[in-house]
């Protein structure tokens, strides 16, 4: 099959039943998406499908054909770190880093629709992604910092 991933056409030969998550990781060597539960609760496997966050552990690779997939590896566009990624680095938006790709992609989709979010809105945006290390505060601050860096004022 052919998958459009981070703007590139990638081909892979996989069993019908293979999950998108496992295909990205094993066949396309994009190991940024992580298995955390394999039943759609934790969000560590989150990728963007046509700009919307989806659980790649709940999709078959075949279902993703014909859609635009974006993974964490595509975030910086090959230029070091994006503003969002830098905000996570600067504001302790990660500790072990395992939830981080899912958080970043969820945040990216959120910030595309919300240029000037409140703390409550940012907190709500990531409420479907579990983090066991940070207590979420650093992640929320990182999202707000990224919004501010993009010209969103104080709220």
């Amino acid at each position, binding site marked *: 099959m052919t998958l459009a991933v981070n703007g590139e056409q990638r081909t892979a030969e996989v069993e019908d039943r293979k999950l998108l998550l496992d295909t990205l990781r094993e066949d396309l060597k994009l190991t940024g998406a*992580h298995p955390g539960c394999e039943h759609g609760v934790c969000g560590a496997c989150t990728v963007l499908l046509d700009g919307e966050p989806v659980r790649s552990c709940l999709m078959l690779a075949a279902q993703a054909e014909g859609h635009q997939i974006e993974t964490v590896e595509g*975030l910086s566009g090959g230029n070091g770190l994006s503003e969002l990624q830098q905000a996570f680095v600067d504001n302790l938006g*990660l*500790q072990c*880093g395992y939830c981080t790709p899912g958080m970043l992609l969820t945040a990216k989709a959120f910030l595309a629709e919300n240029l000037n979010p409140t703390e409550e809105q940012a907190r709500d945006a990531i409420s479907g992604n579990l983090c*066991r290390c940070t207590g979420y505060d650093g992640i929320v601050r990182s999202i707000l910092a990224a919004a501010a860096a993009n010209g969103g004022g104080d709220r």
Partner: protein
Amino acid sequence: MSRVSGYVGKGIPMIDAARFTQGRGRYVNDLPFSDLAQIAFARSTEAHARITRLDVSAAREHPGAIAVITAADLEGRGILVNRYWGGWRGTATADYFPLARGKVRWVGEPVAAVVASSRYIAEDIAELIEVEYETLPAVVDPEESLATKDTPLYEEWGNNLYYHQDFEGGDVEGAFANAAGVVKRRFSAQRHTGTPLETRGIVAHWDGALRELRLHANWQDVFLARAVISKVLDLPQSKVHITAPDSGGGFGVKLPVYPEELAACAISIYLERPVKWIQDRQEDLLGTSQHRDLIIDAELAHDGEGKILGLKAGILSDAGAYGVPARGNTVEGMMAAEDIVAAGHDIPAYAYDLNVVMTNKPPTCVYRGVAQPVTIFVLDRLLDEVAKATGIDRREVRRRNLLSPDRFPYTCMTGNYVIESGSYVEALERALDLIDFDNFEAYRAEMREQGRYVGLGISCGGEALARGATWYGVRGLPISGQEGCTIKIDSYGNVHAQFGTTRQGQGIETTLAQLVADQIGVDIARVTVGMGDTAVSPYGAGAWASRQATLGGTAAVMAAGKMREKLLRIAAFKLECAAEDLVFEDGKAYVKGNPSTAITLEDIAHSAYFTASELPDDIEPTLEETAHFDPPSATFANSVHAAVLEVDPATGQITFHRYVVVHDCGTVINPMIVEGQIYGGTAQGIGGTVYEHSVFDQQGQPLATTFMDYLVPTSHDVPKIEMAHIESPSPYTALGIKGVGESGTVFAPAAIATGVADALGVEVNRLELNPSKVYELLQQANGANGGGSA
């Protein structure tokens, strides 16, 4: 040893955070190997049963089966030579095997292993394995387990008692006889676990020609793992090489050497090929260690004026189904027994009786906080009951019992701990001022007028951290109570510091780099830090008891001090002056007042490596220094959590209005990392009190095996924390560093429990405060108030 400049005290970002934001973590499941076969396990569906039939023939016939391996296969080859069982001196032992032999003792116990080219195929094949069981009565309740002699888990024991210990110190009888009052209560906490977002995993590669075992696994202590594996497999430790890759969280649950990981090693030897096992979430909730399952019958004698005269504790700890190597299953119970009198209160007389019993559940080992979340809860609840009984306010009762600075060093009643420093009373005052304790009743009344129930929870005290050799080693376990650091400066003048610590995201490599950069006098960009590799790390013990910055950090300062001294000697020789006349900073040495004389670290290194012939004979070539720090039995940090929380009378849900933490971890190396630890720990403390519960039915069937039943806190469940810090340096450690990692988890539960008790005017004696439990308490409160609506 205290050179503080530059980096210590600064909240610099984690030095390699960038790659994680790019999806370039290297967790065990990411490591690229060719020709790796994958393992899936067939697992017991019974909690306690004899295996009457195990037939793998159909599985073996599957075209994708590389191998299907049972205990009999491994025994037939004699791969596991020595006993696989965990527990310190005095625990009962049994001849346990990492794949079930004849009997299963917990739902999820591995019965057979399938090896195939993919996990998908391996799981298909596992379903073809046929097992028949003769069900035995399961024991799920620890009190029942203690009482029964019928069908024990290990028949040769005749009962289920894994460990017993008791103690009496001080005049306990006198304290209780002369008491103005005694508060006696039964306290308990529900079983729950750590669920790091990354599950366990291992890549095992046995090279039959070299007779070497090469392992990659997200263990928190690579030296413990090597000690266990080399012993069980009868290999010299030099032939077992373990590396811990990036880890997606540990929290204590990745300390044991579990059956699956040992089975993976044995399977690699059996097949003479590399194999990989990555645990999935269901397997994690079935078989990773579980914790906090304690019953504490506590009695506190007081003098009528709020002061504790003596304490008695009867402790029952649920151990689970087997002794997990290496720690075994007594740590939770033992820390409950000993640490309750090491929490910063003056307790002059104490007796305990501890029983640790097997049940048909996964093993109990260690999880962030270990017992202290429960003992702090017991202490704060007892003190609140004393306050009620005497009319003394809750702040004053705590003030009268917490250690004031003139009491240090304070030897705790069990004799093995000395509290060396701390800000117990100061932290209490600060926290209660911040949360406006004195005006709380007005706030409560204002809320009550709106039909709302708010309470103020207080938890306070200290934690015993960074344990020395007296805790495990002296009890016979191969767990090192020390930590070391090897500093090497390469021939181009780059500094590398290697440790036996491991990293799970707590920023330890950053913290240690800050210390090394400061102590040697170089830019942190020239410092690299390595850890968790048995082949190159100095012998250590990894991540537990909030020890790595304290012990690794002190070892780093010691090693850096030796290195700096050598650098100065070489520089002094080259500059033809005395070492005292030199300045060494920013990677350069020069004669004081004359910076034009500067030589670089690279110049010094070149001399040490390549032209030692030109150096004095008493300077050895190369630049490598190692130091190990042997600490006291523990060092002590202290905290106060104060929370204003609301209980919704219709739903039993708890929401926080305010959450204050005052915290003292001695000298702070990186304030951003410290705050991150407090937030993360508090989140787990909230989860473990309000949301998380490893539930079992009467047949030992686990009922919380997915994240839909086992609820991990989300971003909506953790409040904003107002934090204040105090620094009471330890006199034992470099720069006075103490640990911080567990404090949030230790103090949050009692803050919540005492807050709910205060909000509803009822006793809260069990740390299980999900909405339905809180709703039961609400019914009690209504009953006590004579019925009517809440």
